[in-house]
């Protein structure tokens, strides 16, 4: 009988009820709070804030809970909410040289002014499942030590001065200079102006910062394997807090409006020089909200790869192709268009069905004709 997708409204309502049930899971298990997500799944929160382009831990935690842990779905919720927020203006650029450092490493120098600070990192853990964590209660008591007193003691040990490593290279003119554009007052915003190629670096960095971590990871990786090689060194990766300052129109002077946790990666890449420029190192830049180290390293690799055209390098790899990278980096756009294949397409498919039938009829007729010819030939 003819039912098809009729009665869509009732179906949607029931589907939403089922979704809510699935999200909650077994009611015998205590409900997860957004505070728990914020505190204990903090790297998920960081990723959702970064790719959602909204620094708000509470909302990101809520989005993760509502999305049942599907981070792209959570990013989507944040993006859709972000759309509705009013804009007051742009802050003064944050100064990462003034960051309150929690982690800071350089792969280019053994020691640097301010020292190497390992901070919270998975880097040197052994990836052995820690079954103690599986015990629902009591893992806290076993938890490693570092009480508040220890932490403040560590803080006290940190130098106030932690100059950025690439700035040290800059003093010697060994690395390309990066100056703000003349008309730096207006920074581009691809959520308010559609991209138009070629794009300026501010838009490129915004695009990459919002871009999907997995996509950038694969692209960055591809540059290391020869598809647009750029001989990278992690000049510096730093994690910490920076102050955000804003100049309200009616005040006319900057006031501090809050603090952001940022991860920054400055990549240092080889460059042989060209007709215009002497041999020197070039830069790739990565920045994220929270602690998204994999993301900022990959972002820096891709940023550098995309400089290829401007530096007169041959554009050979996908990571160097501006339109390819920037048109496909956004996971909300990508997931939408890929998943929209779930939507009904029966009208288009009907049209194709008719066409294939028509073409098959013709092909059958033709092979029947040629078969006839063969019989005639055989008879002769």
């Amino acid at each position: 009988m003819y039912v098809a997708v009729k009665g869509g409204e009732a179906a949607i309502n029931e589907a939403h009820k089922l979704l809510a049930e699935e999200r909650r899971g077994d009611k015998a298990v205590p409900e997860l709070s957004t505070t728990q997500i914020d505190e204990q799944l903090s790297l998920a929160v960081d990723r959702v804030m970064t790719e959602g382009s909204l620094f708000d831990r509470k909302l990101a935690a809520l989005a993760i809970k509502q999305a049942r842990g599907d981070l792209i779905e959570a990013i989507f919720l944040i993006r859709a909410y972000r759309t509705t927020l009013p804009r007051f203006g742009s802050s003064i650029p944050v100064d990462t040289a003034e960051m309150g450092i929690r982690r800071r490493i350089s792969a280019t120098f053994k020691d640097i002014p301010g020292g190497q600070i390992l901070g919270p990192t998975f880097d040197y853990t052994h990836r052995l499942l820690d079954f103690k964590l599986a015990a629902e209660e009591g893992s806290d008591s076993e938890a490693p030590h570092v009480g508040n007193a220890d932490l403040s003691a560590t803080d006290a040990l940190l130098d106030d001065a932690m100059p950025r490593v690439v700035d040290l290279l800059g003093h010697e003119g060994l690395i390309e200079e990066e100056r703000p554009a003349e008309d730096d007052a207006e920074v581009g915003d691809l959520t308010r102006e559609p991209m138009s190629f070629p794009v300026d670096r501010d838009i490129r960095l915004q695009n990459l910062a919002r871009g999907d971590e997995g996509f950038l990871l694969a692209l960055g990786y591809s540059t290391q394997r020869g598809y647009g090689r750029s001989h990278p060194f992690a000049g510096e990766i730093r994690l910490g807090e920076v102050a955000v300052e804003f100049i309200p129109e009616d005040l006319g002077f900057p006031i501090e409006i809050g603090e952001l946790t940022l991860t920054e990666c400055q990549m240092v890449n080889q460059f042989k020089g060209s007709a215009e420029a002497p041999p020197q190192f070039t830069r790739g830049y990565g920045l994220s909200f929270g602690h998204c180290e994999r993301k900022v390293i990959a972002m820096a690799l891709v940023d550098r790869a995309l400089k290829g055209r401007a530096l007169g390098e041959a554009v050979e790899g996908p990571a160097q192709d501006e339109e390819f990278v920037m048109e496909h980096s956004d996971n909300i756009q990508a997931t939408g268009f890929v998943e929209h294949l779930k939507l009904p397409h029966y009208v288009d498919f009907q049209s194709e069905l008719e066409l294939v039938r028509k073409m098959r009829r013709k092909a059958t007729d033709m092979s029947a004709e040629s078969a006839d010819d063969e019989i005639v030939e055989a008879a002769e």
Partner: protein
Amino acid sequence: MTQAAQNAGMQVDQSDVTGEAKAGPDPHYNFAYLDEQTKRMIRRAILKGVAIPGYQVPFASREMPMPYGWGTGGVQVTASIIGPDDVLKVIDQGADDTTNAVSIRQFFVRTTDVETTTHTEEASIIQTRHRIPEQNLSEDQILVYQVPIPEPLRFLEPRESETRKMHALGEYGLMHVKLYEDIATHGHIATTYAYPVKVNGHYIMDPSPTPKFDNPKMHRMPALQLFGAGREKRIYAIPPHTAVYSLDFEDHPFEVQQWEQSCEICGAGDTFLDEVVTDDQGGRMFVCSDSDHCNRHQEAAE
């Protein structure tokens, strides 16, 4: 973000959960979701599109609460032109009760509380995906199309920077070669939907993935036709009564699909038919894709 805005967001989620029916538009969002600045920006893009029929106007597409590919472009166009007195109809695959059409209609009911209808002639705005209603539209109506890929040349040339140049120079040889190659290979043009059209004798335009069956309806349509592509950030338009010509060759004129069957529900012999598989023995029936038209035709017959 302000604490108030945050609270507003939290409250909306709660009302979602309880699913209470509300009178009037949802107070937590601006009328039709988008803020007035954004609507103005979109209306400017629409006006430019109307002034240059078939030209793809870049616009700062917003992130909407439904996914890209679900009709975010159409939703933004509708949101920026809809007023409290409008009567809205939403269709997908020609039908009012496909899930996505229901979902978009619910979105506008929630954010605008406008009257909705399934009757084509009663609607002042019709948002559509993949079809043009069978019934002729009037000057008092606006047809809003959801567009996935606005660029008709995209599959011939993937680069936006190139295709924009090709449009600017009217350099459409590539498209004609593609159609010619179809004829050389198959004996006919093997494009059945998203069949390219020339608008007002100038720009080649993608009619969105409507079947080519619907192309003739676009020609000199009294209603304003607006096209929104959210992910690709483009808006374009066909003003009322504009010439829309489906590309063809003198010796291979444009033709629409035809069926040997009539609709098995209403008996119409001049509509686009969906094929419905009725069993696993190869049984099938053909019914109108336009559900409203089919219902009316049925009622008239009774």
